[in-house]
């Protein structure tokens, strides 16, 4: 297509002092034939921006190369509307600041970067946003407990329509079972009423909230902005179109039947926390066996939790709950004795004050491992434990009641009432097994537990993929509420174990994310991490071989299938990570501003010196989410690194196409380094599996390299996070050393 590209080379911020800007202009204007090429010492200033604008108007430029700083800064200054594509060519952090000034190699690096981006600019087009008709901005909240009610109220307050679905006959969830709440506000020292009625009234009286109680979700189809939900209530089916979903179905207590080693089942006076709430709610705290008022009580913490054979995780709320329940007894009888046997008191956040309040009220905390629970005199119970702080065996006897703090299990961890969240293998769905057998790329499929909550009509499975123990997978640091299904946000104890204060905060956060999602979808833009990106993958379906790799590898389940097995994208579910692009063996998936040939052109554009020049070239594919920021940080900190590297930013390493490595190697590039995020259970990849997929694909590249007669060590993948920026010079030096050991690429000059 006819394309006019303008190149604007900034000489400010030390660029002019360390690089020959005139030579750069020569490269852009003469060699790459840019119709417009200008320099200015301050392009991001009002005057500089005005210059670019004038040139856009005069020359009808449709692509702008801003050669200067990183795209992580000044992005607002260089926004010229949707019709002009802007490519930021980073010669500040990545060249001028991180290499020796006025050096031949530094200059070559800057020139090559311009060549690369000029090559990319040839085929870049401005993306066209996908605008949905009949878009709904309604937020559906699933679950009417503390988190669900909070999410509903918060969304309604922000003036969004809310549909609240609760499976029980009344709202309140766990709150219905509680006598009182642990403090929710400062000074975090005294018990609070559940205030349930007022909370329900607030929801019922809000005209923005539509409540369905005794209701289940039959199925959820569509995507953000277009979810078509079928709700079953009292035998009738109701259809709702909603924009985004907050999943707040909460957790249930861990099955106490599995706590026989702590005496559950041996005596009616060994009970769980929820049973204690029932007793307290009735009025007098008395022994279930004979109704005698309780004078001495013991709580056993981590009953089942933090136990490799039961729940390996900490259930987060039980410590505070036990303190609260001990205070119930102290409220009834201040002379009554309460003991808490704990592993570690985890009264997170402000609950430290509550812990102190419980101590002041006379609750005694014993750090010890309970070794046995047995019957004592007169219907009492005895706990034997190893007191860790005393280094002694200890014993609490004449106990009237023992309460087990039996942790929580997310509602998403159950299939037809059976717990499958932890250690239990879910049988793989047939379709998945078939696809895995058909495709030779072994995609680590995320397990999906059929928990009968959302019943998604997605090709990839009916519920949210889980990470561990049945909790929905999310990027726990950067986007905790994001599940792996775009537009569905988990909040409250279904997301991770948490207490009420955290659940309220969580629900508010998830509601905000849901609102962001419907608003972004209305603009045809992606939600984070590529927030605002309007590009979408195009499929050249006439060349599709129905291998299903794109549908399998899409981390967000965005791609369905039509009857013939062709991929069918749901544009509003797409997060623009381009994992599908890297997955496609036929390379038929591309974006308007990011594609396999586009990157291919980039890596063909830089110069590879002849062998006798003794200047090897290393090509780096760096993830835009963490590796590029890390490289920028190295520049900002003026760390010097090898000038023989050429860096190509990629959206995610998941978009890596092996043909790039092939092309680079056959050009005579001496080594290829992939910089991506950490993977595994505590992954850092913003698109869940991108860097992992890249490494899996890389394991197949050795074959290609062998065919070319090259050593497979020339291509390596490394994980890096923004915090590791100090490691970059060392990492590159080590890789360079290895490449020098291997000698130059024999393909040079062919």
């Amino acid at each position: 297509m006819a394309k006019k590209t303008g190149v604007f080379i900034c000489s400010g911020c030390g660029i002019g002092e360390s690089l020959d800007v005139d030579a750069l202009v020569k490269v852009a204007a003469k060699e790459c034939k840019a119709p417009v090429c200008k320099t200015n010492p301050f392009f991001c200033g009002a005057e500089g921006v005005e210059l670019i604008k004038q040139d856009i108007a005069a020359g009808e430029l449709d692509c702008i190369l801003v050669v200067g700083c990183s795209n992580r800064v000044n992005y607002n200054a260089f926004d010229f509307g949707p019709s002009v594509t802007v490519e930021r060519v980073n010669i500040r952090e990545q060249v001028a600041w991180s290499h020796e000034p006025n050096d031949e190699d530094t200059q070559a690096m800057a020139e090559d970067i311009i060549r690369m981006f000029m090559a990319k600019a040839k085929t870049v087009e401005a993306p066209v946003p996908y605008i949905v008709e009949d878009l709904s901005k309604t937020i559906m909240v699933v679950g009417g407990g503390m988190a669900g009610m909070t999410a509903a109220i918060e969304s309604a307050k922000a003036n969004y329509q809310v549909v609240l679905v609760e499976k029980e006959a009344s709202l309140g969830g766990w709150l219905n079972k509680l006598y009182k709440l642990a403090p929710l506000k400062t000074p975090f020292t005294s018990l609070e009423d559940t205030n349930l009625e007022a909370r329900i009234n607030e929801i019922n009286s809000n005209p923005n909230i539509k409540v369905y109680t005794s209701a289940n979700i039959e199925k959820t189809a569509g995507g953000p902005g277009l979810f078509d939900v079928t709700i079953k209530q009292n035998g009738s089916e109701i259809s709702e179109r909603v924009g985004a979903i907050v999943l707040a179905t909460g957790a249930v207590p861990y099955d106490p039947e599995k706590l026989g080693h702590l005496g559950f089942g041996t005596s009616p006076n060994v009970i769980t926390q929820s049973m204690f709430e029932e007793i307290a709610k009735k009025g007098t705290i008395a022994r279930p066996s004979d109704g005698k008022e309780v004078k001495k009580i013991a709580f056993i913490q981590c009953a089942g939790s933090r136990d490799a054979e039961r729940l390996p995780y900490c259930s987060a709320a039980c410590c505070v709950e036990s303190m609260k329940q001990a205070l119930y007894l102290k409220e009834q009888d201040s002379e009554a004795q309460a003991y808490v046997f704990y592993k570690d008191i985890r009264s997170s956040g402000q609950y430290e004050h509550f812990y102190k309040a419980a101590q002041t009220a006379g609750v005694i905390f014993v750090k010890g491992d309970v070794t046995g629970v047995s019957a004592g005199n007169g219907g009492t119970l005895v706990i034997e434990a190893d007191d860790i702080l005393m280094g002694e065996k200890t014993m609490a006897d004449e106990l009237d009641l023992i309460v087990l703090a039996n942790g929580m299990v997310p509602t998403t961890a159950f299939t037809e009432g059976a717990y499958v969240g932890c250690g239990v293998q879910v049988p793989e769905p047939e379709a998945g097994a078939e696809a895995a057998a058909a495709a030779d790329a072994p995609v680590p499929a995320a397990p999906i537990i059929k928990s009968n909550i959302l019943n998604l009509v997605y090709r990839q499975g009916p519920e949210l993929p889980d990470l561990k123990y049945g909790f929905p997978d999310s990027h726990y640091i950067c986007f905790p509420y994001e599940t792996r299904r775009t537009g569905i946000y988990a909040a409250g104890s279904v997301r991770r174990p948490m207490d009420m204060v955290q659940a309220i905060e969580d629900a508010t956060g998830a509601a905000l994310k849901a609102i962001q999602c419907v608003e972004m979808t209305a603009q045809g833009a992606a939600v984070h991490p590529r927030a605002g990106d309007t590009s979408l993958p195009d499929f050249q379906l006439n060349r599709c071989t129905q291998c299903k790799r794109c549908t399998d590898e899409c981390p967000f389940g965005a791609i369905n299938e039509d009857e013939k097995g062709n991929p069918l994208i749901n544009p509003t579910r797409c997060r623009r990570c381009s994992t599908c692009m890297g997955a496609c063996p036929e390379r038929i998936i591309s974006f308007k501003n990011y594609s396999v040939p586009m990157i291919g052109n980039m890596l063909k554009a830089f110069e590879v010196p002849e062998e006798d020049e003794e200047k090897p070239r290393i090509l780096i594919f760096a993830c835009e989410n963490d590796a590029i920021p890390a490289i920028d940080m190295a520049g900002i900190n003026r760390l010097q690194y090898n000038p023989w590297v050429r860096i190509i930013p990629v959206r995610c390493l998941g978009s890596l196409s092996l043909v790039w490595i092939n092309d680079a190697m056959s050009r005579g590039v001496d080594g290829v380094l992939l910089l991506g995020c950490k993977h595994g259970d505590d992954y850092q990849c913003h698109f869940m599996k991108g860097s992992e997929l890249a490494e899996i694909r890389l394991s197949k590249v050795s074959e290609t390299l062998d065919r070319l007669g090259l050593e497979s060590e020339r291509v390596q993948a490394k994980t890096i996070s923004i915090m590791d920026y100090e490691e970059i010079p060392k990492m590159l030096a080590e890789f360079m050393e290895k490449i020098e050991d291997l000698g130059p690429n024999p393909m040079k000059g062919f």
Partner: protein
Amino acid sequence: MVDNKISSAPVKYDNSFAKEIYALENGHYAQICMQCGMCAVSCATHDIMDYSPRRLFNLVRVGKKEEVMRSNTMWMCTACCMCKVRCPRGIPLVDVMHDLKAMAIKQGYVDYPHAAFHQAFWQEAFSRGRVFEGGIMARFILKRGLGEIKKLLALGMKDMGMGMLKHGRVPLVPPRKIKGLKELQQIIQRAQALQEKEAK
């Protein structure tokens, strides 16, 4: 440091002693101890204590009166305040130790020389309004018995004492009592009465 074994039988919890402690002026602070051990690692004299302050507080909680009252922990406390400064719960350990010392004396648990010295010093100060070293020594030896002199000599205190005498650091003649001694004593007695009242 003594053997930290408290007894071979399993520890049973008995809160009657704890209640006694919590009733002291600063005793209630022992309740909010969370056993982090910051006091123990901060303590300069921890090595020569029977129990570290953390352990002592735990013993209070468990109800081990004999062990607590007979321990040397509070007597070895130099009141440097490092633990008080560092305690994340803000417990004024020095003040608690002081209360424990007072209680131990009052209930007749103590046979540490430190206790006798504290008392001798205080009586001296109370009776004169200022301190006379010779008087303290006399009171101390009277309290501990004459055998204490031997012990002191064995510690090489003779040379030090002679040296101090020679340089006039220790006067032989008692100093004059202060003016208004009666009033001072009244102030002190009043303060003691108030303290006892407040603790209740």
